[in-house]
């Protein structure tokens, strides 16, 4: 068994906000993260499996890049996570929550059992790993 990793970068803006709270309450709960701000995210996607005996590949990197372009870049790159995606109407777009959304999208898009883990890096000093199996 081997693991291969492909990385992509996307940039997005966000605000931490809960819809049931007022602007002041959100500011008290989330501090400066309640303000409109942004990150250059880096996503590392690690797949596991046996290389295909003919091609020598777990998954053709061209196909993996296509999946990442269609499923991740198209949804998140140069978007606002709160306004341009449907995932954060109730829950704040913390790196934990964003990583879990991305993990769900990739599990659905990739061949069964191939996803091993993802690392979502919000900035050089903070990142989240989601490691399979994840409930």
């Amino acid at each position, binding site marked *: 068994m081997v693991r291969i990793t492909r990385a992509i970068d996307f940039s997005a803006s966000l605000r931490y906000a809960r819809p049931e709270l007022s602007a002041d309450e959100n500011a008290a*709960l989330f501090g400066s993260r309640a303000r409109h701000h942004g990150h250059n995210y880096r996503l590392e996607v690690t797949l596991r499996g046996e290389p295909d005996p003919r091609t020598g590949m777990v998954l053709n990197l061209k196909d993996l890049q296509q999946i990442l372009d269609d499923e991740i870049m198209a949804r998140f790159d140069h978007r606002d996570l709160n306004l341009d995606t449907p995932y954060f109407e109730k829950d704040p777009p913390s790196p934990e*929550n964003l990583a879990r959304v991305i993990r769900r999208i990739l599990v659905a898009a990739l061949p069964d059992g191939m996803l091993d883990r993802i690392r979502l890096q919000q900035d050089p000093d903070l990142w989240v790993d989601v490691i399979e199996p994840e409930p």
Partner: protein
Amino acid sequence: MIELTRRYGFPAAHILRDASLSEAENQATYGKCANPNGHGHNYEVEVTLTGPIDARTGRIVSPDLLDRIFEERVGSRFARKLLNDDAAFRDRVPTAENIAIAIHETLADEVARRSSAEVVRVKIVETRHNSCISGELA
């Protein structure tokens, strides 16, 4: 499983030297790191936590709380200090291994006391050429 990692750093001096050993034995064991006048590094510290995600805040731990804990327990204690002077290294040589273990221990206690998260590992990057992890890999 989900893990959150935050990276910190501090510059510090240390001397790798065991008082119970002779000069020749210290030189043989620790080489140039045994220089009695000391030397220093820009230590990088990667702190990895796991735990339930708070449904309200979306966080395993508040990064602001983690930053405060790190500053109280590690930053203010080790930054621009000689590590050998710290109580943690009274009975152990401040190798990267022992620094990783000492920081892991102190952060694990404080994080468990002040949040629902758990410190699973601490990685110390001493130089571009060596690093050490205390705790289990995922």
